[in-house]
């Protein structure tokens, strides 16, 4: 159950900076302020194309999209965002913007006519921006909205997250549901700074390259601020390969849950399984220490995910520490990431020795996810793909993956 089941669920905002624009100091200030005001901010980053903004808005099922534009071209860009939102099932999501002095009052008139909801001009105090956002964009959507595709999935997850919105947009059984195509769910955990997000994104790039027909889903859990209830969900910033229609990416704030996952994670996983369209679902926990395995302490036993991957960085603090890490004992797969680190050589030997103690025959994967085209990530992906029952075909089939019946 969400910690504050009686409080209204937080407003979710997507923020981004448009294509060919790297001015992110205003948006990072706004992000911080929004989170302080109890809002969940899904930050997409700078230099973002319209398609990525729209895809993220739909998949994250946000209340509103805020764009910070300083490099000109805003009239064309904002219109394109509004138009594509309408085309892709997000026509009900309003778009606001700001751009210091680069967006004039005359521009604003044109932009409003073309569907942009509001422009914050230079000199608008942060307090006024916050008050306006909370007043105008916290509204619940009209009941009975019917959604399709990714937006319907996203809305189902929103409902599972704790009733920010009344039931009404519930999803019909998805295409392929009941066909037995339930997808393989992999839980990914590890301490903060281990490089989980980067490793996941590199796995996504391999999936996309080697499975032209498939779809992959990611549930990225990030902590909520304990006092404000807000959160900055920034995993999308560095997820460069997840910007693809074949990837469904959803950020979940923990909203008071202390297990490393949102309380809605089990329901969200089930929704993605039921959707019947994902070959692989990756669930990223928040950074966890040595004390627990987020995928097992959750009450539903080991069935929450089909397998777990534990990502460990080379600087874990020595051999004694290794004995205490619960995930090393429980995880199906273990990857030592950041193998370009000077301590990696020792770490590799120590962790392999620790795995050997259990006699399960687990082999440590050595990866350097930050390096592009890392062969260690290739090998990890192959292992995971085999375990997932998805095996690369050797022939020239249309789909390069086929399911193997256990």
């Amino acid at each position: 159950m969400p910690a504050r089941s009686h409080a209204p669920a937080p407003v979710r905002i997507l923020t981004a900076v448009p294509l060919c624009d790297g001015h992110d100091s205003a948006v990072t200030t706004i992000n911080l302020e929004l989170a302080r005001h109890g809002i969940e901010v899904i930050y997409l980053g700078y230099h973002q194309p319209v398609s990525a903004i729209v895809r993220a808005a739909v998949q994250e099922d946000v209340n509103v999209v805020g764009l910070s534009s300083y490099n000109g071209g805003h009239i064309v860009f904002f219109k394109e965002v509004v138009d594509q939102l309408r085309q892709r099932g997000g026509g009900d999501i309003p778009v606001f913007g700001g751009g210091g002095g680069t967006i004039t009052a005359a521009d604003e008139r044109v932009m409003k006519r073309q569907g942009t909801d509001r422009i914050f001009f230079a000199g608008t105090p942060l307090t006024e921006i916050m008050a306006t956002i909370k007043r105008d964009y916290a509204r619940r959507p009209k009941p009975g909205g019917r959604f399709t595709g990714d937006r319907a999935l996203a809305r189902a997850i929103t409902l599972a997250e704790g009733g920010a919105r009344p039931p009404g947009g519930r999803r019909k059984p998805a295409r392929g549901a009941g066909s037995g195509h339930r997808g393989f769910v992999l839980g990914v955990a590890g301490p903060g700074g281990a490089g989980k997000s980067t490793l996941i994104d590199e796995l996504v790039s391999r999936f996309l390259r080697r499975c032209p027909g498939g779809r992959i889903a990611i549930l990225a859990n990030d902590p909520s601020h304990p006092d404000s209830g807000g959160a900055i969900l920034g995993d999308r910033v560095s997820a460069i390969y997840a910007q693809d229609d074949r990837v469904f990416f959803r950020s979940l704030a923990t909203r008071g849950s202390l297990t490393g996952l949102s309380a809605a994670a089990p329901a969200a996983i089930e929704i993605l399984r039921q959707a019947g369209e994902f070959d692989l679902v990756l669930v990223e926990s928040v950074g966890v220490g040595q004390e627990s395995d987020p995928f097992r302490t959750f009450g539903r036993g080991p069935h929450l995910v089909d397998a777990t991957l534990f990502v460990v960085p080379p600087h874990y603090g020595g051999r004694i520490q290794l004995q205490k890490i619960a995930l090393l004992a429980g995880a199906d797969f273990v990857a030592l990431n950041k193998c370009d680190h000077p301590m990696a050589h020792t770490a590799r030997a120590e962790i392999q020795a620790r795995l050997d103690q259990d006699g399960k025959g687990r082999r440590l994967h050595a990866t350097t996810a930050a390096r592009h085209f890392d062969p260690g990530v290739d090998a990890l992906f192959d292992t995971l793909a085999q375990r997932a029952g998805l095996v690369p075909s050797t022939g020239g089939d249309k789909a390069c993956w086929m399911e193997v019946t256990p």
Partner: protein
Amino acid sequence: MSQLGRIADAVDTYNAHVTDEVARARTDARFAAELRERWARIQESIDWTVSPTGTPLPRLALPQTDDPGVIAGYLLGQGLPGEFPYANAGYREMYLDRDSGAGEEPMRLFAGLGLAEDTNKRFHYLSAHQKSLRLSTAFDGPTLYGLDSDHEGVLGKVGEGGVAIDTVEDMSRLFAGFDLTRKDASVSMTMNAPAPVILAMFIAAAKRRFGPDCVSQLRGTIQADMLKEVQAQNEVIFPIEPSLRFLCDMIEWCVPNLPRWYPVSISGYHIAEAGATPVQQAAFTLSNGFTYVGLLKQRGADVNQFGPRLSFFLDCGLDVEYLVLGRVARRIWAIGMRDVFGAGAKAQLLKLHTQTSGRSLIAAEFQNNLTRTAVELMLAYLNYTNSCHSNSADEPFTTPTEKYATLASHGQSIILEESGVFKHMMNMFGGAPGLLVLEQQVEKAILDVFREMDTLGGVLAAQEQRYQRSKIQEAGHAYEEQVYGGARPIIGLNRYKTGEPLPSVPLARTPPRKQRLQVERLRAFKRKHAKQAPAALQRLENVVRGGGNVFAELVSTVEVCSLGQITACLTGIVGKFRPMV
């Protein structure tokens, strides 16, 4: 200890040496006599001049003393203008005799709008007011990110905020009518991730017009500072490692082939604009510079060859630390280069370009920006910057219009030519009590940042841990809070408002028909070279994979390939940059 820790130690060691020498000057009679004799010789060597109102003045002002301790402290701790450790100035007579045409002309005027011919026209307009040819180019968003004007979703951005350059033909149009081989011609380009491609286009365009031998005469600067992009400005295309390789390839090629070119401008400007304090700006900029030096040395390059081709670019705002930021930066650079990298005299001098602060300018009651920029210019000249750019007052809401660009340029002339402050005497203020105190405090704070990064493993390791980014963001938030909370007075914004409505200055925008014209030109270029392009890209790929000098190959590639084609090719080989929050 990382290289950075050694540099911090070297500065401390040098300071201790100065203290020891001051003490020795006061106790060792022979040393004291030597110093007095040298002091007398220096004073004798100073020429005299007369102000327009008849006051005789020495061309160099020195502390009025014959105390050997004070003399030692000045000569070693500060240095005469043009002498190690260069706190007072990089050259002996920088701003003197500005009317006679001698000396370094410090003005740079930034321009870039629309298509190449529009910017070309602006260049001709601006340079008509200048003695020498100084062309400083701003590029539009798609060009800065290495994208072609026909890339999906960029059309509205074409020619906005800077000039659109897709091909070598655009580059030819950009500089049409200018003799780039003139001795006093200098071109600067604010261009980073695609800098090797853009500079290659510039070289190719120059060769087309002036023949193959012109290359060694080309003079100018390209920014190409990838570390500050990763830390602050966010225009990054390739992962860090290949980004640095492409940069180092370009620097190594330019040192012998473009001997008058500065192939990197190590920049704090964008670090400051993104929120950094003055101390952070200097600390991150200098440490980035030392990182490039370390990388180039690792590749086997000679510090005395490439060292003099490095240049720096700092922001100058209104905070008190800006009174000395350039002075302190020159001093730390000189000591680090000499004592850690073994650089000779020419490679010890930090050559500084300064731009007045864009962040300090606001839209509300914007004519106050003229005063802000004038004060910042004074601060920049007090630091004896080698060159300077002054922002237009209308910059908070548009690409500078001609009126305000001209006023900005004239502001520089009023200070350097019309006023007598810098005209007759060097070292007007060096050694003043306030400056000395500030220099010590700022230097100490910079070294503290060096040591903090050192504990994280050096610049690149700190960068991977987001150290610089989070420091810059924190400082930016603090600044915003000061502004909105009123703790930082901004006239016309949070105090003394006159209620003047927001300006309605005519905006420089690129009309859609021009944007479409650019796309048509690009497509024609691609059609014309459709046969040669694949082979040229294949040759480029072979060089990238084979470990050769990528820049040397790019100079040929750009003859038949567009910026976007080359970016896509390189991304396919080395991957894409993964952004940081």
